[in-house]
């Protein structure tokens, strides 16, 4: 059994990072578009908001839109932003940054450095080499900083779309003048600088995926 696991590990870690990335891209391109129902929950330090329902729309190569039934705070970063880059293997450098072992899987860490890109600086992806799917990504862009996204999948074999996406975001401290908020009775909780950064999480739970079914694409441009 140990021998079998070691063969599996060798096979998984032995793949070239470029090949693994291209295999993921090939799998992902089979899904031309999708919609799904979504439930968003928030864990942002200074924002009190209940979970929100909505619908998510995706179209290749990287159009992604969340439409909610009520107000929702969403990360500015599109989680599929880097997928467009993968279409052209000559447009990025693929750096193998080693691997981690998880129970039942081997996680390869791959860095994608765009050669020329107006926005993306670095994409770091954690790939489940056995199931050929991304389990975590860290995208650093010029305008939105770094956003970490975890992707959790259901147990169905071959499932390529996540059941849950968890965005980890760094948010600056929120402070507006009392006279503007008319919040005259409150006291400042601390004397920290307004720009002090705190960590937050936004969870997107996907259900009812509808793959490759047409929808009105105006949704991306509203």
């Amino acid at each position, binding site marked *: 059994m140990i021998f079998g696991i070691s063969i599996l590990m060798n096979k998984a870690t032995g793949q070239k990072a470029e090949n693994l990335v291209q295999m993921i891209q090939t799998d992902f391109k089979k899904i031309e578009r999708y919609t799904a129902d979504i439930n968003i929950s928030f864990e*942002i330090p*200074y*924002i*009190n*908001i*209940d979970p*929100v329902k*909505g619908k998510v729309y995706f179209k290749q190569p990287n159009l992604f839109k*969340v*439409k*909610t*039934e*009520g*107000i*929702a*705070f*969403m*990360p*500015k970063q599109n989680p599929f932003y880097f997928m467009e880059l993968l279409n052209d293997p000559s447009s990025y450098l693929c750096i193998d940054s080693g691997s981690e072992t998880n129970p039942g899987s081997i996680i390869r860490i791959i860095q994608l450095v765009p050669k020329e890109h107006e926005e993306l600086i670095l994409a770091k992806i954690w790939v489940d080499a056995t199931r050929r799917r991304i389990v975590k990504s860290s995208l650093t862009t010029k305008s*939105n*900083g770094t956003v970490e996204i975890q992707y959790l999948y259901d147990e169905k074999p071959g499932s390529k779309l996540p059941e849950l996406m968890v965005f980890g*975001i*760094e*948010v*600056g*401290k*929120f*402070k*507006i*003048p*009392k*006279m*503007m*908020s*008319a*919040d*005259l*009775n*409150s*006291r*400042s*909780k601390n004397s920290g600088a*307004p720009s002090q950064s705190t960590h937050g999480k936004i969870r997107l739970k996907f259900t009812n995926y509808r793959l490759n079914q047409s929808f009105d694409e105006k949704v991306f441009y509203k």
Partner: protein
Amino acid sequence: MLTLIRTELYKIARRPRSYIGFAAILLIVGIIEFALYIDGASYIDFIFQQLEGFLSIEGNVLNGYLVCFIILQTLIIQMPLLVALITGDLISGEAANGTLRLLLTRPVSRSELVFAKFTAGSFYVLILLLLLGVLSLSGSLLLFGEGDLIILKSETINVLKGSDVLWRFYGAFVIAFLSLSVVSSFSLMLSCFTDNSIGPIIITMAVIVIFTIIGSFDLPLFDHIKPFLFTSYMIVWRNMFDQPIDWGLMGTSIAILVIHIVLFLSISLYYFNRKDIHS
């Protein structure tokens, strides 16, 4: 007593000054709704610019509930001034016009007169608030539609579901009525002390402005003073929009507002019953 109250209401209705409050509310609500309808998006962008770097906001932020909330927080600080304009000379105005003595020759006690004037003043406050409520809530919902309500506090943001908002507004209006009743009883009390018509109005306005300014500063020295200022409890209507609502704080604040009304009315009764009426 009812006849007395009706007479007092008639007097309020006869005075052109009584309509300044209604006109001011109509004008301010109209201006705010028009301005937000035309340029509300820039206002929202300005408020949320601190979040722009990390988060985007989905959904209809500028909806009727938010517009109503903005109007309330703008107006409820100013409304005591409109109330004082009427209730500040309910008694001193009679003295200044030389009608108080004549009024007290009728078979009514002085206490009944004070109560009748306070009740008529409260009815005026109620009508003023109803107008504000109808214009700001119904008008804004008509213009901007429904949606979730974003409440900005100085260091936090609360988002309330649209279905969970309406009852909070009703509660906020009830607390606003109590708060303005504190102002009307305070100005009525000052009105008992003097025969000058304008004095109690000016003093009430000055006290509210000074108390509000002290309340808005975060200085530790003022923290010891704030619990003794009735204006600190008048803005508790905003706490109706907390999630969850601190019912302990709400109960305490409402009790303090009621105690103030009772206290100011008691002082008015005590003083007015012993007052030498010269005119």
